[in-house]
């Protein structure tokens, strides 16, 4: 094989600048294709919502490009689509996120529209109502989706009253309750440059990328940008919960089974992640895939996943099965979880997952978008720009004892949350 440029980035590859108003810009060049990707976030998430207005942050982020003080919804999208470029916003508990891509020649256009959407959205009345109708249709479709509804109930029980237990897209009644004034006020109080991060990767010199961001967002100042509230403590579950959400007329039921997992910054994270790989990811969906799909033929998909972010994460198993096989699949999953907690992973399983984590890096960093996500994660979780230089050591440093210890720490088989949805 020939020598070629590695995709792994080092601190020297990534240009990091902090603008005077607090915006962090991360930039890296990649001239292999004439395109650029960008992504980022700012601390304006659902954590600021009240229970009667759930979905407000999401509503605001979906409104940002539906008209600004200088451009209509149609004018914004006409410029973007004419350039074959894209830009979009969404929101989670902690942040409003954005992402986009364009030919390098159109980066200034995308940045200008990003800036306008963030700084001066107009929330036009007719657009608010049009979006409301679309959001309500989305919620009607969610109510019919067995996988979405199993997820919704799972999170509701797992996190109880914690902000992580509330759906970021709200409920029909909360979406109905949100007024145009609520949208404006949420934007006024929570949007600002402090805490904002933007990453740009592609056919542009990093310094030029920073200049381009500074040109459109460098002057943005907000004097009363509110600090995010501290996450409330999570109440641990005292016993297991099982809940079924009926959706008549469906052919398949979905199940989610799980527990609270570590946050991304928790030292347990890598051991839990490698353990999870053996449990329900590696090869054909790990051990879970092996017993539920390969050996029993019960499901097309059956896997486990670890969702680790700023606060307490979730460690869960999901599958879609024929309704008559629901209990059978749940039994098999519970047995696997017990085995995992008792014995952890084998030497071979751990070595396999470690090799996979290290070997797959070039693939996950191949595209501009993949690189943008990696840079944002490194920044968000303080992993250090030399993270990928240290990565192999971190992965190889996890032992079988570490895995079984985190399995026992987090997975309490007598206190599982089990949510199912289907006929």
């Amino acid at each position, binding site marked *: *094989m*020939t020598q*070629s*440029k*590695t*995709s792994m980035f080092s601190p020297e590859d990534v240009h990091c600048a902090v603008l005077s108003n607090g915006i962090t810009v991360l930039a890296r060049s*990649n001239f292999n*294709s*004439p*395109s650029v990707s960008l992504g980022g976030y700012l601390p304006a998430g659902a954590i600021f919502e009240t229970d009667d207005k759930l979905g407000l942050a999401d509503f605001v982020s979906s409104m940002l490009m539906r008209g600004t003080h200088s451009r209509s*919804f*149609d004018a914004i*999208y*006409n410029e973007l*689509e*004419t*350039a*074959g*470029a*894209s830009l*979009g916003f969404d929101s989670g508990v902690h942040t409003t996120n954005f992402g986009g*891509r*364009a*030919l390098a020649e*159109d980066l200034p256009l995308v940045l200008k529209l990003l800036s306008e959407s963030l700084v001066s959205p107009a929330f036009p009345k007719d657009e608010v109502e049009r979006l409301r*109708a*679309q959001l309500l*249709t989305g919620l*009607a479709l969610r109510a*019919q*989706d067995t996988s979405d509804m199993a997820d919704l109930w799972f999170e509701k029980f797992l996190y109880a009253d914690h902000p992580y237990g509330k759906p970021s897209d709200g409920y029909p009644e909360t979406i109905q309750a949100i007024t145009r004034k609520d949208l404006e006020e949420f934007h006024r109080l929570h949007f600002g440059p402090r805490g904002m991060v933007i990453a740009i990767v592609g056919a542009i010199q990093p310094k030029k990328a920073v200049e381009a961001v500074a040109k459109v967002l460098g002057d943005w100042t907000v004097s009363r940008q509110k600090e995010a509230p501290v996450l409330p403590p999570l109440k641990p579950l005292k016993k297991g919960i099982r809940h079924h959400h009926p*959706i*008549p*007329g*469906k*052919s*398949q039921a979905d199940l989610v089974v799980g527990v609270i997992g570590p946050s991304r910054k928790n030292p347990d994270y890598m051991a839990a992640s490698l353990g999870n790989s053996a449990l329900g990811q*590696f*090869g*054909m969906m790990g051990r879970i895939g092996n017993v539920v*799909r*390969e050996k*029993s*033929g*019960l*499901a*097309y*998909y059956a896997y486990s996943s670890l969702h680790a972010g700023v606060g307490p994460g979730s460690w869960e198993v999901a599958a*879609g099965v*024929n309704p008559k096989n629901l209990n059978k699949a749940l039994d098999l999953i519970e047995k696997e979880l017990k085995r995992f907690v008792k014995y952890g992973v084998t030497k071979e399983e751990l070595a*396999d997952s470690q*090799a*996979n984590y290290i*070997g*797959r*890096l*070039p*693939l996950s960093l*191949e595209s*501009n978008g993949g690189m943008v996500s990696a840079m944002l994660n490194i920044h968000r979780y303080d992993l250090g720009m030399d993270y990928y230089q240290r990565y192999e050591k971190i992965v190889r440093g996890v032992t079988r004892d570490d895995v079984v210890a985190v399995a026992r720490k987090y997975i309490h088989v007598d206190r599982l949350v089990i949510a199912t949805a289907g006929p």
Partner: protein
Amino acid sequence: MKNPVTQVQLKNGMKIMLKEIHAAPIISSWVWYKVGSRDETTGKTGISHWTEHMMFKGTKKFPHGMLDKAISREGGRWNASTSRDSTRYYETMPAARIDLALRLESDRMTKSIFDAKEVASERTVIISEREGSENEPMFLLGEEVLHAAFRVHPYQHEIIGDMADLYAITRDDLYKHYRAYYVPNNAVLSLAGDFETKAMLKRIRELFEPIPMGNPPPRLVRPEPERKGEVRLTLEGPGETMFTQIAYPFPNATHPDYFALQVLESLLNGASGLSYKTCRLYRALVDTGLAVDVSGWSESTIDPFLYRITIVHRSDRKPEKALTALDAEIKKLQDKPAPAGEIRRAVKQARAVFAYGSENITHQAFWMGHTSMFADYSWYTTYLKKLASVTAPDVQRVAQKYFQPNRRVVGTYIPKGKGR
């Protein structure tokens, strides 16, 4: 061209396509078999897709369970899919590990076991896959529309197959299908990434050339007769949301009208992978508040297929109004040539989509093989040029020719849920 493609035919008829790209230490390898739902007869629908599943169940040399672990251990990604026209298997691996993928593919071209127990277990997995799809109103509606659009041609059924056949197909049916279509003279290997062509070709010859040529695979030749008269159908099911799907017969990917239709599609519904909020149908149906969403897509196929438009209706609006607005938009394109600026925009959008695709080696290997299923690679390399040569009168002419109400199928999903 920046990265030339080397194309070679092995002595056994297998076609090899190689494209060196040294941007990252990755190689993507795709093996394509020209067999899909297009080749399936009544009673055997879904057999190509099921065969694809069985290819992961092992050979003597790479037993079941070892294959996926071996690839994953090396940090590779692999999967397979079945389309109307082809079945394809890919591995994208760190460059130094690609030999494993090549050895695996050469072995399973002829030596997959098709163990009876594995067939039985996979039957229920595929039934479960279909049940998952049946949960989606759009799958159910799409299936009805497809059936109505094709009375004769085998494009009439979904790729996953009908439930009756998923219960009835036997191990021997699957094995027979495998042996008939998985022959080197019906296969293409497309490889892109960090390798040297000469050395790679030598290795490919060692692995694939000894596989004997097979009989030419059987083909169904059942062209669809032209429809005269619109078909309207309804389907009832759970939920609160109404959908309409409208299907117009479209020509195949090598038809002279194909590129003018791509431009027309872009005008109506945008380019693949981009937002479509300023396209004609969105403006006419969504901006006006008549519907929640409208989208459309065609496929690049061997035989003539369809252009399908899906409307997601608003519960507080009459669905007929959305359909009337759609007809009015199509009529505008038939009555008057589109402005030159709109056509230039379609070309620019395609240029951007091509640039995004070139960031990704897996994508580049995909396109080489994919185009070889219905055309040759020049179809792909000249795509932007052909698109740029489309004129406004071309677009008007194809709008008149293909968007005829008396040749279309209009299917509506009627929700029987809350509030109805």
